[in-house]
């Protein structure tokens, strides 16, 4: 008897051919076998047995799926949640969840794959939060029993990157999003003997023209994810914000979050925070594995204003420049700032703006009304200043 998904739309029938969004959420916050195993394997020594952030992140993402997720082209059809919470931590999920065991992951993935494959207009969303590893250029995600087997780690961990590559032409869903909130440490020779396998071995379909597929990671390769105990990770919080609209753009008179806008928005968040290389946001990473026609993920709400950071190149010019901003077509007065060594941080509405820089020093040439775009979720703009 196959388990039912945690939630399914009352008007959705598995055998009915209609485009739907199918979501699989996996959160692993409890690794009971990890402490013993970590004592024997240096490669695992940094992995904690309790991840309360996984629980909070799972709940945060599930709440977005059930409440604001709106996609008229593919309404929510099903949501399946697997969550292993540490002892004493209450997940507070609005839907029932099964444990994130290795068998549970395999079964849930197989069933999600079947649901997603029922219609070419489907939207497939996969979300994972838990411990991640890298081995032989494979991104590995782990299940609750990870570390149970003394000799072999592979039965309880999966090669997610190859799984996604197999889904590319093995699943007809025209939109496939994978959100991986996990570490991506450098490979360790201790992991080499363990042959981590994909969650999907033999796809039942063969799609000649794959849809749009992308992966968003919480961290760049070679780095580790962090979190504050009991709170959703920065990646998940941002993801929900972006999916709610900040990662969208105006299209067909709607504010749409698509497979084209969301990866770009995630990159802009990372770019905006790049000044602080240690911040969690600076590590966000996106891979667009197939970029066919953009596909709608969700309809969101247009943000009112977004953060804007304006800089000059060379940076020395900032300390000598009087800066001004004006929104094109707006009746409001110019925003102005006097000379200061740091970039100009402000908030502006989405649209086209003009920028002026006037210099007290004759060393630099003034900038007169340079046009630029302010788009969601945030913008960094550096204007080049010519020297005399």
């Amino acid at each position, binding site marked *: 008897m196959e388990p039912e998904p945690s939630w399914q739309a009352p008007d959705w029938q598995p055998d009915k051919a209609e485009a739907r969004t199918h979501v699989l959420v996996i959160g692993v916050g409890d690794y009971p076998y990890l402490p013993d195993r970590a004592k024997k394997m240096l490669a695992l020594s940094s992995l904690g047995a309790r991840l309360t952030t996984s629980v909070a992140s799972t709940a945060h993402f599930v709440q977005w799926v059930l409440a604001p997720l709106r996609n008229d082209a593919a309404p929510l059809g099903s949501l399946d949640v697997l969550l292993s919470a540490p002892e004493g931590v209450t997940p507070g999920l609005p839907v029932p969840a099964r444990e994130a065991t290795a068998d549970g992951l395999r079964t849930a993935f197989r069933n999600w794959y079947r649901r997603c494959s029922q219609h070419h207009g489907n939207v497939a969303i996969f979300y994972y939060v838990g411990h991640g590893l890298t081995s032989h250029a494979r991104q590995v995600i782990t299940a609750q029993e990870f570390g149970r087997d003394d000799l072999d780690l592979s039965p309880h961990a999966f*090669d997610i990157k190859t799984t996604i590559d197999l889904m590319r*032409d093995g699943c007809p869903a025209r939109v496939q999003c994978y959100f991986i909130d996990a570490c991506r440490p450098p490979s360790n020779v201790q992991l080499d003997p363990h042959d981590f396998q994909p969650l999907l071995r033999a796809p039942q379909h063969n799609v000649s023209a794959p849809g749009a597929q992308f992966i968003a990671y919480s961290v760049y390769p070679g*780095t580790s994810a962090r979190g504050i105990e009991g709170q959703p990770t920065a990646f998940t919080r941002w993801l929900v914000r972006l999916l709610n609209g900040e990662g969208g753009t105006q299209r067909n*008179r709607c504010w749409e979050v698509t497979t084209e806008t969301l990866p770009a928005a995630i990159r802009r968040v990372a770019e905006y925070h790049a000044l602080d290389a240690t911040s969690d946001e600076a590590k966000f990473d996106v891979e667009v594995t197939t970029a066919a026609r953009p596909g709608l993920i969700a309809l969101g709400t247009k943000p009112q204003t977004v953060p804007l950071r304006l800089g000059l190149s060379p940076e020395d010019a900032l300390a000598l420049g009087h800066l001004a901003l004006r929104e094109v077509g707006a009746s409001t007065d110019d925003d102005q700032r006097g000379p200061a060594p740091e970039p100009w941080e402000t908030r502006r509405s989405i649209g086209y703006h003009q920028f002026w820089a006037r210099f007290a020093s004759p060393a630099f040439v003034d900038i007169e009304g340079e*046009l630029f775009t302010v788009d969601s979720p945030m913008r960094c703009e550096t204007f080049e200043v010519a020297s005399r």
Partner: protein
Amino acid sequence: MSSLSLRIAPLPGGVSGFPMAVRVRRPDLEVVAVEAVVVGAEPSMPIPVPPGEYFVEAAIPGRPAVTTSVRVDEDAEGVIDLARRLPADPGRALSIAVGASPEPIRPSTLTRFWVRSNGAWHRLDRRSGVEGVVGWQGPCLVQQGFRFTVLSPSWPESAWPDLKWLRVGAEVGGSRLLASQAMLAHMRHLDHTAARVLLEHVYQTLHREHSPSLLAAVGYTFARTDSWRLRELVPELQKLGRMVRLPDLKILEAWTLLQGKRSPMAILEAGALLRRAIGEGLPLYTEGLDYLARALRLYRVFREGEAEPWVATSLRRVEAYNLAADWSETLTVFTGLHPDRPRTLPPWLAEVGKRKPRRAGLADLMRARVEALRDGLVVAAADVLALLFQRPQRAKRQLPS
């Protein structure tokens, strides 16, 4: 009906014929049209638009988008000359590094080298020195070979761990490579709507040029955007792949074999191609590192149960380069102490002072090659050291400012 015509005048210094994606948007940022406009070509087909104000953005790799506004009135054409807004030096604008050749390098070729330092590109110029970085005079040692891998300015010893190694292309002269690289860089910086618009232009160019590097650039773009078109390229990939040692062509061919209906024979053939690709060195394009890793992983899954140690070894090697690669670059550029030793720590870890990589590779490189390395201003190396620029006497080293 009113319309908008777009035109990009020929840029100073050439680069006519380069297609650029131009996006037309309303003031509320809604996209009205995405058009491919060829630099220096006749005006594109007029875009029918209702009267109103429009903003036109042209994306230039490595530069902020150039934005200009135009008002389109009833029964009138709005013409935009983007050339006024583009930088005067297209080479700099495109952040281009041009490579060496499988043939002996002529001194004139050297002037086409660009090096990147502290985020800026500098051109090597035999007469005037390396522009803005350091001067260069004296003899140059050129060694024939194919897999040139490295081009790096001579930085002070404290900066050795940050040496950037660049995989240099196979084509003489660099103009085709320049075009290919610019095109791929362009595609990588575009969203896929704009990238698709450009594909037809590129496809036509490909048939005229028969350039391996351009073919690889087109192949990677099709791999992401249009699987059918990638399959159409297979005969060309096979033909040119037999003629030149460019691993990217084999990687792309293997990738197509591992997609769709995979027969056991196709999987074996893909494996053979991947082995050849690995034997030919690093991919020319950064994207190739990703496709190589993905193809190897798929091959390993499909060959389950067959012991092939080379796959694991190759994956490990590719992963090391993946970690060290600068993914913002189009050509394969990675950080390391030696071409064969990519730095296993990503640069940002070193930057924030958590762990600094040891300088283990420096001694090996010196032992293997010339003791004058420490005095060398610019070193370009490969599986064998390919280029060494020396200055006649030792001078105080400075970081390029």
